[in-house]
């Protein structure tokens, strides 16, 4: 991407963007706050913290109902709600999710999360080495969703995980057209939808448990006062699942990468747990997992002095906004005690991530248990790599080594209500 003019030819999926993320972010933040891309049928990208917040907050001018990325093909079998709808209908579904995803409710799940964290660490602690993404970071979010929240068998996890990856995190292939890529992602969504639909039908027949699934099945009213149709309930389940998987995988891998590469900070965090909360905010900023999410302009307008035409898609590059030097001095460094006044990593406005408390809790428990159980953590031989897929940043592999430790007993039913 080095030789191209960012202003007119920026590509979120360019293969060198992940490896040169710091440099490219620095350059666009300084020189071109809004760029145009010819890729995937054309879109614009907004980079600066202030501009992202302005657009994200203005849902009347910048709608979500035409999809979250440029090549959503309008296939109505698997959409994501409330991500792909606008207020006021969107706000009703957000209230339903809020009941189950608020910080206090989520805190009740801590014993279950801690048990899964330790069970996963048990899986490789005696070996003194692991491939952290495969053995931990990609596993924990799925266990949260399926085991801690839905109580469904862990055996089903691999299948749904793979389908979700195809829908969200697998990058565009060399020589693949925008249409082919879009169709491949949609096929992944359809497989996830099929699985969840079967689960929801089963739950509809069972006595209610008072959990998030029951609330979604109960539903809300649409704008015309009619009850939300079955499909919309499925779309909400899809969003809850999709929103929490690859995104959390990325930040968990980031946390381990940080611990392996910053031994002095590791000692500080071990000695002083009061640093943990802020350190986690800083890691969420630095390893922000949403590369960009889209809005569609409802009218001809202007963003940071750039003309935007009605119908154009604006990708809000949250991960780049998190590196804005106007907000953070030395933004490409991890400074665990720097003040994070308002974390853009979870988005902004009415679509800000409703699962943020679950992500923060998984980060905190992972940090605590890794500091407690794993000594002398280092990067191991092998490839540690990141890729991009239009909307997410993905950690493909992270080989680590450490002093072998002992397996501990774990009660995976801990904290079940």
């Amino acid at each position, binding site marked *: 991407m080095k030789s191209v003019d960012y202003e007119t030819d920026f590509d979120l999926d360019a293969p060198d963007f992940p490896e040169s993320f710091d440099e490219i972010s620095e350059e666009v933040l300084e020189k071109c706050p809004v760029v145009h891309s010819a890729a995937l049928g054309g879109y614009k990208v907004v980079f600066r913290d202030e501009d992202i917040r302005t657009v994200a*907050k203005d849902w009347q001018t910048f709608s979500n109902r035409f999809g979250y990325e440029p090549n959503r093909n309008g296939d109505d079998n698997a959409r994501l709600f409330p991500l792909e709808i606008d*207020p006021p209908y969107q*706000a009703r579904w*957000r*209230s339903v*999710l*809020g*009941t189950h*995803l*608020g*910080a*206090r409710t989520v805190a009740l799940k801590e014993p279950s999360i801690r048990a899964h964290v330790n069970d996963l660490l048990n899986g490789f602690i005696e070996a003194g080495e692991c491939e952290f993404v495969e053995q931990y970071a990609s596993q924990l979010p799925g266990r949260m969703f399926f085991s801690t929240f839905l109580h469904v068998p862990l055996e089903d996890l691999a299948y749904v995980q793979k389908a979700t990856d195809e829908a969200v995190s697998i990058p565009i292939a060399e020589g693949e057209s925008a249409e082919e890529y879009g169709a491949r992602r949609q096929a992944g969504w359809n497989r996830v939808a099929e699985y969840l639909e079967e689960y929801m039908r089963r739950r509809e027949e069972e006595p209610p448990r008072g959990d998030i699934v029951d609330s979604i099945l109960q539903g809300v009213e649409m704008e015309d006062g009619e009850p939300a149709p079955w499909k919309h309930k499925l779309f909400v389940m899809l969003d809850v699942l999709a929103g929490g998987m690859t995104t959390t995988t990325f930040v968990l891998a980031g946390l381990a990468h940080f611990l392996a590469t910053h031994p002095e900070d590791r000692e500080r965090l071990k000695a002083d747990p009061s640093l943990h909360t802020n350190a986690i905010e800083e890691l969420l900023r630095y390893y922000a997992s949403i590369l960009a999410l889209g809005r569609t302009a409802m009218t001809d307008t202007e963003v940071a002095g750039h003309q935007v035409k009605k119908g154009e898609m604006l990708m809000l590059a949250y991960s780049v906004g998190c590196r804005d030097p106007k907000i953070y001095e030395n933004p490409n460094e991890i400074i665990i005690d720097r003040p994070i*006044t*308002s*974390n853009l990593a*979870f988005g*902004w*406005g*009415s679509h*800000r991530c*409703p*699962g*943020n*408390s679950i992500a923060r809790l998984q980060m905190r428990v992972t940090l605590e248990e890794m500091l407690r159980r794993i000594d002398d953590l280092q990067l191991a031989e092998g490839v540690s790599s990141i890729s991009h897929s239009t909307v997410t940043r993905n950690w493909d592999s992270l080989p680590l080594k450490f002093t072998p430790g002992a397996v501990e007993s774990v009660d995976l039913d801990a904290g079940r209500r």
Partner: protein
Amino acid sequence: MAKYMVDEALCQAHGKCYAIASKVFGPDSDGYEKDAGKGWVEIPPERLADARAAESACPETAIRVIEED
């Protein structure tokens, strides 16, 4: 009429809203906004400016203030 809503999934008990607009917002026993997750709450007209200031100050954009005829 003006009203506000606090998104329960977003409120992290920073406490900015009730520091700025204590006549509109308030803490529950854990410091979260007391009406988080309770739907729309009416704002007396003379408190609208305070409520707007609190909306802008929330670090999580958990507060939505709207005015309707």
